[in-house]
């Protein structure tokens, strides 16, 4: 039976809970030297849910996001994707990361490649798609983010907003099950924020599971299913946006929201 040999051996199976949240973070701790940046963080994201993390700079929200796909290694704690524990093992990570689309604050496009090559890179080099197929898919994705006319230019010719949309298309190309956004609009000129948020909103409407770190309170209010407020390395509270923005439980949350929200005009 040579047929059977071709089937890849399945990794040792761990019992998978079918009702498990899509992403579960359990008691994560992270130190930078003496600095305890994540203190026993636990957080779950359901399939199709949009969770927005807010908080002051230095509160640990970006670090948390980066720990999810192991760009930062947490000291202890567990991360589960679809009920399956993710360990700090290169092989597993290379596979799992394809399911975790990441969008960075500073875009991190590959400057030596054209826009379409950026989007195709993962498809060809990681997923092993033939070039013409990858190209077709990349063009469709560029269309989705409204940039199909920029396919052949280099990233340096794009505005910040356009760069970030390409970065989103590049992440989407891997057909991820969740998208992680690490302050995707923080490096943009104010007038370019809207186009990126629009793409993200559309993505949410399509049912994409999203974990977003942002300072855009508008996005948290309008698009999030749940808002998480982080302060000093802990999740101080999490609630539906209506509740979070109208009646937060903690004094510290109120204080933060007062600072970031424009004063009510009445």
């Amino acid at each position, binding site marked *: 039976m040579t047929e059977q040999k071709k089937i890849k051996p399945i990794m040792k199976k761990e019992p998978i809970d079918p009702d498990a949240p899509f992403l579960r973070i359990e008691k994560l701790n992270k130190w930078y030297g003496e600095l305890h940046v994540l203190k026993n963080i636990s957080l779950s994201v359901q399939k199709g849910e949009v969770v927005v993390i807010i908080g002051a700079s230095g509160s640990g929200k970006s670090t948390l996001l980066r720990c999810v796909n192991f760009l930062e290694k947490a000291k202890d704690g567990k991360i589960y994707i679809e009920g399956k524990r993710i360990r700090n093992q290169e092989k597993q990570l*290379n596979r799992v*990361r394809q399911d975790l689309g990441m969008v960075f604050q500073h875009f*991190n496009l*590959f400057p*030596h490649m054209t826009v379409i090559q950026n989007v195709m890179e993962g498809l060809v*080099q990681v997923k092993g798609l033939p070039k013409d197929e990858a190209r077709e898919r990349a063009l469709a994705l560029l269309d989705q983010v409204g940039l199909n006319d920029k396919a052949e230019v280099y990233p340096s010719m794009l505005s910040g907003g356009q760069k970030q949309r390409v970065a989103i298309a590049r992440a989407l190309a891997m057909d991820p099950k969740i998208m992680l956004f690490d302050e995707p609009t923080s490096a943009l000129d104010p007038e370019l924020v809207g186009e990126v948020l629009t793409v993200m909103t559309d993505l949410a409407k399509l049912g994409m599971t999203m974990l977003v770190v942002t300072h855009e309170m508008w996005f948290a209010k309008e698009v999030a299913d749940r808002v998480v407020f982080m302060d000093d390395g802990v999740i101080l509270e999490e609630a539906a946006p209506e509740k979070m923005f109208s009646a937060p439980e903690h004094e510290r949350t109120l204080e933060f929201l007062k600072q970031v929200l424009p004063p009510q005009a009445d």
Partner: protein
Amino acid sequence: MPMKIIPWDLGAIPSRFFLFGEAAWYTVQITALGVLLGLVIGLIVALGRLSNNKTISTFSRAYIFLIRGTPLLVQLFIVYYGLTSIVTIAPIPSAVIALGVHNGAYIAEIFRGSIQSIHYGQMEAARSLGMTRSKAMRRIILPQAFKRAVPSLGNQLIIALKDSSLASTIAVPELMLRGRQMGSSTFMYMEMFIIVGIWYLLMTSVLSYAIHRIETRLKVSDRD
């Protein structure tokens, strides 16, 4: 007897100039092969230095320490004379090996610098797509690093070209040796070494121009 204002027969230079053509060709060849070998060694040692493997990075560090800290002439003599008890290497291969080993250490540092100058976000973006570390290095980091290394590599190439004159000490019939031979057979040392100097200047000029062209062409994609 009338005093000659200039004690040398500079008029002899043009007619003797092309007697150095073949020697110049040797200079070009040992430089080219030496630098090529140096590029290979340099890349391996640079990646070695950046490796997470302690043994490999220590070895690479030691290589740079030893080679960069000793004169090329010593290295040349070790290859050509020193190794004779084990293996005899002809002058030209000896020169190529010594130049390659020597330049490898410098080129390793050039590569290491340019690899480290690539923003860590590039590696993170590649890894977040599911690329392995080595693939990310090959596809994303090195192409950008090579580009940044070009000016320094060009500089190193010019240094190597001039350093190749040391091969005259182990009887490689390159420019410098030719100059010495022509000098001693005609006693026109000044004239002959001026010719040698002009040949080097010509070759370094061509290299400078070529490097400049390459740099300009590589600038296409990054304007930010």
